[in-house]
């Protein structure tokens, strides 16, 4: 056995990273924590308020409604994007000249900035001049996302599906591409049908990338801001006001720093907790 060298000076090497993390994460976060437990009446005058803002936020109907909308939205887009992404990946060619073409086409929506996507869909879905909105109305279906909450929801969901399904497709495709041919050959010899091949070969082999896909899509959609802000501005009424839109309204619009800070922390903790939950469940399944 080699003896380990003890040298406390080794800690010095950690200082740069500690400083970096302190400045870009810990200090900003602590400012928010600081705000969340105090009340200010005017500049520079602060009072200790304890957990009051947290209690207020959790009890407020406005927050509960925004959280509900947020969970519903994330639930819907995960339920659409994950199966749809897998289905598209399964139909993509594995070999040949079409592979790069398909991959580039798939990657295109991912390259468009959020606010541009919002603006595109804003115009695309306008009932009077937008291609989609006009066509749908011309078919006799009343559709106006600026007035009808349901229409607004459908448009926001469609926009997100259009923008982000590609990510799931590309990740699933990478998972599928890593399966050796022998697996498919063995399955054919074992007499497995298409569904059995998917269930017992493709899905288990995609497990890892799907964990990543679900986590990324959960976190991104849970924090979604720019696209619905540009598309609907959170309306009509409050119908598409998701958590981050509500948070910005509160912090910048109403300048309620204390409650906004408390809300940020709750928001952050929910995102963290749900991500952790997803991750543990999915990785445990893999090992068990």
């Amino acid at each position: 056995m080699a003896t380990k060298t003890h040298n406390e000076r080794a800690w010095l090497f950690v200082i740069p990273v500690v400083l970096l993390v302190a400045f870009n994460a810990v200090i900003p976060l602590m400012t928010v924590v600081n705000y969340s437990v105090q009340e200010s009446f005017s500049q520079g005058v602060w009072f200790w308020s304890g957990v009051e803002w947290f209690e207020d936020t959790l009890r407020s109907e406005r927050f509960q409604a925004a959280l509900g909308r947020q969970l519903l939205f994330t639930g819907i887009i995960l339920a659409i994007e994950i199966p749809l992404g897998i289905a598209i990946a399964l139909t993509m060619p594995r070999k040949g000249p079409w592979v790069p073409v398909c991959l580039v086409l798939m990657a295109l929506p991912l390259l468009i900035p959020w606010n541009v996507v919002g603006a595109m869909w804003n115009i695309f879905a306008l009932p009077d001049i937008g291609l989609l909105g006009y066509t749908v109305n011309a078919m006799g279906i009343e559709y106006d996302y600026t007035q009808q909450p349901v229409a607004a929801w459908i448009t926001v969901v469609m926009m997100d599906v259009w923008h982000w399904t590609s990510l799931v497709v590309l990740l699933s495709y990478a998972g599928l591409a890593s399966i050796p041919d022998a697996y498919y050959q063995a399955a054919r010899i074992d007499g497995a049908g298409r569904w059995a091949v998917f269930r017992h070969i493709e899905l288990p082999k995609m497990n890892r990338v799907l964990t990543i896909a679900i986590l990324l899509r959960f976190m991104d959609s849970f924090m979604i801001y720019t696209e619905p802000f540009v598309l609907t501005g959170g309306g009509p009424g409050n119908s598409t006001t998701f958590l981050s839109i509500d948070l910005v309204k509160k912090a910048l619009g109403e300048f309620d720093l204390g409650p906004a800070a408390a809300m940020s922390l709750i928001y952050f903790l929910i995102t963290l907790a749900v991500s952790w939950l997803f991750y543990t469940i999915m990785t445990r399944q893999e090992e068990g």
Partner: protein
Amino acid sequence: MARITLDRLRHSYLPNPSGPQDYAIKEIDLDWEDGGAYALLGPSGCGKSTLLNIVSGLVTPSEGRILFDGVDVSPLPPDRRNIAQVFQFPVIYDTMTVYDNLAFPLRNRGVAETRVEARVREIAVMLELDGMLKRRAAGLTPDAKQKISMGRGLVRDDVNVIMFDEPLTVIDPHLKWKLRSKLKELHHKVRATMIYVTHDQTEALTFADKVVVMDDGVVVQIGTPVELFERPAHTFVGHFIGSPGMNIIPCSIDNGRAVIDGVPVETENGAHGATGRTEVGVRPEFVTLADHGIPARIVRVADTGRHRIVEAQVAGARVHVVVGDGAAVPEGAAHLAFAPAMTRIYSDGWLVEGAR
């Protein structure tokens, strides 16, 4: 179980093959007897895996037919041919238990669950997997996984043939030997036709009753391990099998006799009919150092532990001689003697089939 016949089989991976060089399989006629243990031996890229995939139906041959018990199966897909195949890398269904893995081929074919259970337990005992049936297959060692792959072939008692495509590649050396003898034992028990593809002569010679040696898309020789060793039909077989391989020395022909460096050499076969490039083939085991005979120059001596291998230069060719531990090896000039019954004349690589 079935007798497998390959009828004038040719295969090219190119859409429009223009000559023999474009074919991975260059016309093969072959009969595999029902219940036999065969090995398909050859260097990498000789077409043996292609041939195996043609038999299993994963590859459709460009020309020719495959017959199982006289019935043409060429147009059938793998699942309708009723064959089993074990691949180079173990293929297991990760999410299933060992039991479910073994039961999978039966369940896919709608076999009753009581019958499935009986078969799975029987095969598990045979493969010594019976202690781990409840475990998830994903966490097992490579050799256990490869046993499961074999087991999935064995559970179906009606398979026509079980094929192995270099199945021991990823197995640790000390387990290779165990798994190989297990396979041999299984063959005795189930008496299924088995075809074992490998580039490793030890694996081929220990497993098979009959070995098919391939080179460059052609079957060079079919024979028992002893035949391949003692009477190679082609210099390729002589060189590929044996360690070191057969010595091949260019010779001239004089009156039906082989002559090396002006010294006539006694051979088992006659040289009548020999044309083109003529060579003498003799295994290192049948060459001795002598006081007179074929002149040679000793280049080096290598000790392998059991015996020594002397490398000598004869008529511009390199000749290996296996020498026992006690014998003295001269330095520099020496003479060699070849055992006449084990020395043969080859013409253009092929054994000359002529009496003396």
